[in-house]
């Protein structure tokens, strides 16, 4: 698996479109034990990403991602703005200057994104956040890349791992973010951010086929 600017654009576009399409669903997930604005926040940011699609500097994948990170930081509020902005910023920084991005580059970039989220959110796997879907998903992606799977197969493994891990957050008690105020009441429903990661990965895997 090797990734060019085209592929990066394709991935970002899929993420953006899926966030816009799932505004209501993501919001409803966040209103179970959160404050219901997660879907709205993402949609408002990613609809800007789409609106200005042709304007971003496309020197390389990294530069492109850094521009996207800027839009996210300036348009998405709540916890999601800093978290998602940091993730895109870190990935962009990692890939900047690389013309033909390898699968290993992608995995390495996503690892720095994860570290950025952990630092920004003072959080870790097990706290019932999007990290609980993202980390297992990247683990699966890495294993698949190391195995030499095709891009499509890697995507499917990524999506399957994200979905399983997202569902599993139901049994966790929220220790970070607004859901943590619910204490034990947060147990029994999945984390909104984690489910969003699963949905994004599944959409991506689906789109990759065509």
């Amino acid at each position, binding site marked *: 698996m090797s990734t060019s600017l085209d592929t990066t654009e394709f991935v970002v576009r899929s993420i953006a479109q899926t966030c816009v399409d799932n505004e209501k669903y993501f919001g409803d997930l966040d209103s179970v*034990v959160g404050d219901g604005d997660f879907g709205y926040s993402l949609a408002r940011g990613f609809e800007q990403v789409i609106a200005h699609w042709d304007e971003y500097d496309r020197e390389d994948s990294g530069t492109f991602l850094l521009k996207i990170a800027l839009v996210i930081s300036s348009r998405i509020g709540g916890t999601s703005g800093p978290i998602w902005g940091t993730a895109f910023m870190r990935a962009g920084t990692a890939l900047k200057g690389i013309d033909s991005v390898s699968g290993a580059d992608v995995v390495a970039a996503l690892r720095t994104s994860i570290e950025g989220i952990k630092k920004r*959110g003072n959080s870790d796997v097990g706290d019932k956040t999007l990290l609980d879907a993202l980390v297992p998903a990247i683990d699966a992606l890495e294993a698949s890349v190391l195995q030499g799977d095709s891009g499509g197969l890697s995507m499917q493994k990524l999506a399957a791992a994200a979905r399983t891990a997202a569902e599993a957050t139901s049994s966790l008690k929220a220790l970070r973010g*607004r859901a943590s105020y619910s204490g034990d009441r947060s147990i029994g429903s999945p984390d909104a951010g984690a489910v969003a990661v699963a949905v994004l990965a599944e959409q991506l895997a689906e789109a990759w086929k065509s």
Partner: protein
Amino acid sequence: MKKFINDPQQFVPEMLKGIALANPDTLRYVPEYNLIHRADSPRPDKVTIIQGSGSGHEPAHVMTVGKGMLDGACPGDVFAAPPMDYVYATTKLLASPKGVLLLVNNYTGDRMAFDMAQEMSEADGVTVRTLFIDDDVSVKDSTYTVGRRGVAGNFFVMKAVGAAAEDGADLDELVRIGEKVNSVTRTMGIALTACTPPSKGSPLFDLADDEIEIGVGIHGEPGRERAKWSPANDLVEVLLDAIVPDLPFAPGDRVALMINGLGGTPISELYLLYGIAHEKLEARGITVGRNYVGEYCTSLDMAGASLTLVKLDDEIEALLAAPAEVAIRVF
């Protein structure tokens, strides 16, 4: 959902425009950053005070911008911390040579946005300090690692540092005052109904006809427990039993007592609660030195109220008594 709105996405900007049109002499509106700021800010002789937080808590904080209070407020959308850029741009725009004080209610999203904005502004040469406000006793520090939430008590921090800044206090002094006021301020709230965010269009949670949420957060977050409705006397007792031992407030103390409406509760009920709380405090040997009854920090249209106590000393009392001029007014 029946509200006075056009498009849920324009709810916040249209409200902000209304505030600006109603206060043409004193306030300015910068649509790009949801920013409402004093027409005379920044001033070289006064530390600039900025508060962000999500919208939906009005009058906090866009309607408490003015002389003796905030220099600017740059809210996010309903219940969403402002994007980092709003805070960064606001800080740069209103930066004073005496520095900038950022007031932040203690929530994950708000902390992140203000932290990032502080870092970036400092890199640009602005002197910035940040104060976190966390007065909500319903969240136990020990069990919840995010820490206590900032709720209606933020009014007192804002008022005290606002008054001191107007008198020329420097940034260190403001941080000292703000931390001191926050450290003696305790709040807890009760929801009778859920609120309906415009973009969601339906109530954020379900409360049965005879249920209330004790210790509710101002974004509709759950509190200590869901209980059956009970008479006002009992509810005030529940609030005082949580708040008084927390600091603790002791017999002989002099306090400010605030009954804050959460948005959908009429002022008649708030004064009824005030009377009960006043008498119950006197019965505990605590004197009410200043009182506040009305809406200070709301949760959209939620029916409910919170009770705040601030332990007074001469310094705090003088700062609270100082005059101020904000959009929220009667005449």
